[in-house]
């Protein structure tokens, strides 16, 4: 399968140089520029598609270990039964139609000097520019006992949409009425600032409807709700009184699967379902490639090109980046990072300097089955500060939760899925 894909790439490149490059001899100049993209999430998929759209003569190879994309946005609705795994799962055929060569494999190493990516299958792929959009991995060690409890199936994060989303849904379905669900939120920065509060809303909505004697305890390591706080808290007060209890400054430091106990700094809390989201860092491949610059967690980039400040020729996108001021780790931002990178890579391949970027974020969160709230921001290059800053006076949140915002939220989800993958 992989072999066949590589031969197709070689055929498209139509040159001995390209063939030699595929065999691992990356010093040979390919007859066409090749961009390799690691990771088929919102960042990587969008970068692959947009490079092909804007520069059809560039070869793009996308390396993704999963057979299909599963969206984190809307996955909280799956927990409540308001959406399905099928709704949030999308194939990579759309990228094939743009001429992207999608290779199902895992990137296990990067040689930035030789400009090659090592795959789990043992192959090396040469590149002119590399895009690394690895998403997040977890610092499990910061919550004592986490990995063992997770392996035993007793605690879930479900912070990467997929099997854990389904498993958490099953745990909620199986829980007795009168049980306690614990949702633990790590200190910011983490993927999707409003995501935990949307999840709290969705779990509470499910409990209210199906298990009204049950309770959801939200333990937030942050002092207060980190995003859309007023809107979330108003919704919880109106919709889920007696079901949803929120505690700030409540950081989980350990978990005991045998007794289903979450250890906080000053007390222990028991639950029937433990949804503990551990602290994050840039995905593993970023660490292996030496792209991490900050706090042993995140990758700093030049926002004009998304190029790593540490390793030349490698562009890092999405949640893995050291976020600019007031920039959330969101699907919208990763999609926009990809467009900055796509434009900059094409300019660079043509020997021109990238233009100063301007991008925007829009994130919707559901607070009930049909009602949503939103936050938006516009980010532009600031030459003096050398980073992206929000435009003063722009951006903000919804006036109030509404079903109209829910309609726009679904439009956003279906549209950004298509913009990234179709």
């Amino acid at each position, binding site marked *: 399968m992989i072999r066949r894909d590589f031969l197709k790439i070689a055929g498209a490149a139509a040159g001995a140089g390209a063939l030699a490059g595929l065999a691992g001899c990356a010093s040979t100049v390919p007859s066409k520029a090749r961009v390799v993209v690691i990771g088929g999430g919102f960042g990587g998929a969008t970068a692959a598609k947009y490079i092909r759209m804007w520069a059809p003569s560039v070869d793009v190879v996308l390396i993704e270990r999963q057979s299909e994309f599963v969206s984190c946005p809307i996955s909280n609705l799956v927990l409540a039964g308001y959406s399905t795994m099928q709704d949030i799962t999308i194939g990579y055929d759309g990228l094939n139609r743009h001429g992207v060569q999608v290779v199902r494999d895992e990137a296990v190493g990067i040689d930035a000097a030789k400009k090659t990516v090592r795959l789990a299958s043992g192959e090396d792929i040469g590149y002119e520019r590399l895009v690394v959009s690895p998403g997040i991995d977890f610092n499990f060690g910061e919550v004592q006992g986490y990995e063992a409890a997770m392996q035993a199936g007793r605690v879930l994060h479900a912070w990467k949409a997929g099997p854990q989303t389904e498993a958490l849904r099953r745990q909620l379905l199986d829980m007795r009425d009168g049980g306690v669900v614990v949702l633990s939120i790590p200190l910011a920065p983490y993927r999707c600032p409003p995501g935990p509060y949307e999840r709290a809303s969705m779990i509470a909505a499910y409990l209210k409807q199906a298990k009204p004697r049950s309770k959801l305890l939200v333990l937030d390591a942050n002092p207060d709700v980190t995003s859309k706080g007023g809107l979330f808290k108003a919704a919880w007060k109106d919709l889920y009184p007696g079901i949803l209890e929120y505690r700030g400054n409540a950081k989980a430091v350990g978990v005991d699967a045998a007794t289903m106990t979450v250890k906080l700094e000053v007390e222990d809390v028991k639950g029937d379902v433990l949804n503990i989201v551990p602290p994050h860092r840039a995905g593993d491949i970023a660490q292996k490639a030496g792209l991490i610059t900050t706090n042993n967690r995140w990758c700093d980039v030049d926002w004009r090109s998304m190029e790593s400040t540490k390793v030349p020729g490698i562009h890092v996108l999405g949640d893995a980046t050291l976020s600019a001021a007031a920039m959330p780790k969101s699907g919208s931002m990763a999609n926009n990072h990809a467009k900055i990178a796509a*434009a900059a890579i094409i300019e660079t391949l043509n020997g021109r300097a990238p233009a100063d970027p301007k991008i925007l974020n829009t994130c919707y969160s559901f607070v009930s089955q049909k009602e949503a709230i939103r936050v938006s921001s516009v980010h532009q290059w600031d030459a003096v500060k050398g980073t992206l800053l929000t435009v003063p006076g722009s951006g903000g949140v919804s006036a109030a939760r509404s079903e109209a*915002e829910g309609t726009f939220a679904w439009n956003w989800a279906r549209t950004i899925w298509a913009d990234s993958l179709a």
Partner: protein
Amino acid sequence: MRTILFTALALAALPAAAQDTAGRNLAAPCAICHGTEGRSATKDSPLIPLAGLPRDHIATQMRAFRDGRRPASVMHQIAKGYTDPQIDAIAGWFAAQKR
């Protein structure tokens, strides 16, 4: 040597002339709600497709959102992030796209 050779090939392969890359780059973020190149991604989208709309219409509506003359759920907050020349560039680019 390698760089020179490569650049020559790339230039031959990438005819960038006559492309409105400034408008394109400014308009690209809009696609997360309005669809790639301003074409709706879904049949029942609540948003009007921007591709091929008259330039003046798009620019006028953006300014109306920005200045509070047209009510909006989100566009009033986003439009405030853009200058007149940027609005014109975005409008011009969407107007030039195939419906």
